[in-house]
């Protein structure tokens, strides 16, 4: 339960409310290793601890987290500067099925702050591009200003081996891209619905509608993976907060095969 101390190496302001921290252990030891989809508990001195997925490259030198400032802890976190020290416990949780999906088409669907937890998958896939079939990344945000990792997305969009589409809920005069919900991109996306693996991260309603749209295209619920959020205090199965029906989201999730949680996702207040 005692965190390890990490020093902030670099802070990057991604959008008006979202920032990326690059961290290194204060001790100088090697950083923890993680699998795409796993998360850490980040502890801010005297303020509190919150679950945040790793958004960096699994083979990168630093530990990278991208966080949207929404409340008490994340607001204090957004004021961290290079040299500050925070606590890190982890990595926790079940990863995205990058091994299971080998040899198949991949559909990655992200909504808003759901992109950072999926970014390690993209790094992995691009580093092992031959292991996968067609790869589609669909990303929806509220406005063009909320687009995360914009330079990186533009670089990826230039590749011939990755199909990438971005859409926004509300356009601006200078926006000439898609407008509409991310689910509207699914019907035309190029992938083999009978064998593709889908990975979805975003708000729970977006997950529900995206999964429905994928099912409509013929993707099996056992090939659809979703990352769920619940309140978490311990991340190791002791505090009870993350329970979702029979599941401890911290331990069995946050990434679930959709067939395990579909019923629950459609129930009220589980």
């Amino acid at each position: 339960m005692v965190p390890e101390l990490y020093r902030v190496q670099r802070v990057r302001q991604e959008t008006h409310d979202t920032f990326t921290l690059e961290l290194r252990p204060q001790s100088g030891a090697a950083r923890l290793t993680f699998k795409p989809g796993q998360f850490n508990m980040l502890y801010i001195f005297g303020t509190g601890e919150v679950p945040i997925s790793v958004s960096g490259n699994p083979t990168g030198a630093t530990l990278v987290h991208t966080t949207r400032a929404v409340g008490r802890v994340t607001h204090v976190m957004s004021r961290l500067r290079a040299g500050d020290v925070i606590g890190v416990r982890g990595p926790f949780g079940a990863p995205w099925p990058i091994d299971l999906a080998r040899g198949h088409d991949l559909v990655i669907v992200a909504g808003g702050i759901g992109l950072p937890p999926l970014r390690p998958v993209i790094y992995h896939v691009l580093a092992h591009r031959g292991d996968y079939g067609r790869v589609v990344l669909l990303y929806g945000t509220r406005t063009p200003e909320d687009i995360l990792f914009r330079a990186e997305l533009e670089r990826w969009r230039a590749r011939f081996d990755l199909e990438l589409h971005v859409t926004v809920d509300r356009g601006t005069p200078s926006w000439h891209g898609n407008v509409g919900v991310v689910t509207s991109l699914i019907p035309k996306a190029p992938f083999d619905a009978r064998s593709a693996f889908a990975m979805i991260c975003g708000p729970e309603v977006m997950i529900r509608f995206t999964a429905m749209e994928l099912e409509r295209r013929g993707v099996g619920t056992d090939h659809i993976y979703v990352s769920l959020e619940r309140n978490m205090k311990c991340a190791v199965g002791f505090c009870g907060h993350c329970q979702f029906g029979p599941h401890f989201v911290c331990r069995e999730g946050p990434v679930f095969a959709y067939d395990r949680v579909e019923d629950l996702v459609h129930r009220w207040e589980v």
Partner: protein
Amino acid sequence: MTTQGAAQQPDARPPAFLEPEHFDDVIQILRRRGYRTIGPTRRDGAIVYDEIESAQDLPVGWTDEQSPGRYRVRPRGDHALFAYASAAHAWKRFLHPPNLQLWRAQRTNGHVELVADSAPPPRYAFVGVRACDLEAIRRLDQVMMDGPYVDHVYRALRRDAFLVAVNCCDPSGTCFCVSMGTGPRVTGLADLVLTEMVGAGRHFLTLAAGTASGQEVLDELGRRAATDEECRLADASVEAAAQNMGRSLAVDGLREALANSPEHPRWEHVSKRCLTCGSCTLSCPTCFCSTVEDVTALRGDATERRRLWDTCFSVEFSYLHGGSVRLSPRSRYRQWLTHKFSTWHDQFGVGGCVGCGRCITWCPVGIDVTEEASVIRQAVPLPGSTGPMTE
């Protein structure tokens, strides 16, 4: 040797016979062995578990009366030591403390240091662990130390604890251990298992060892073996208790019924009465939920991380940015009851209720889990039956 959960006996030695006025010897042996003896004691009109220094601290001659929303103690008119049911506290208070420091952090010139408490944990001897509560400790073990992660504080306390279990002869009006298969006879592993026989002009104890350390204590006690006749009498008291349960709950099909009844109107019905006070979860011997909190010194360069008991009945419990997942009282009551009798099975291979009755007794409005659960269970047809029964 049918009286004392014979399965764990290191050998087939018969239990020892002990006069009640000499029970203090057991407590003193344990204290000499360095244990902090915790047992039932009468305080503020209730029987609670706290440190006991001698047998005089036990509620000698007292019993309890429990019914939904009601608890009281009254004198029995004899000198019985253990003739009452679930105490107001559960043993989890000692193994999973309600307010625990996890670690401290000190910040000096931008350098932070974290220190975990390294003081050796107390060695407890729990005297008077009833069958249901012994099973509750087992269920907590599964949560706190038998899974992929281990709570080191719990494990250290648990590993060193000496358990004196009691075969229950005095169930209360809210007990239903027989339905839950957890009592009144002790079947789990305890260092010593005690039976108190009171009645028909007799009053004596039998004490059986369940472990080698239990046997050491018995050897030091140096008492004669109980006769077959004494064993039979003690056994009959436990047998009678099984016939004397205040409540019952039919559990076949209950797990499935709860899993399949998220929309049952009974959730709304019970939520009209439930105050969502969380008293049930605090009194429950298996409820384990907790939260964490930072306590920062005024100067701001030192902080303490503490773990506190929490309850799924609070709105904040399921808070996510933007609002709580379980906002309505009915969803919170549903979470508690479904966890106890249904999803706990999925998580730990066994249910979360041991039938101690505390949540019924200590609910300020007297909500009875056995009643709520049976209504839900009856609404769903059992395999092989012809159709739903009505309420």
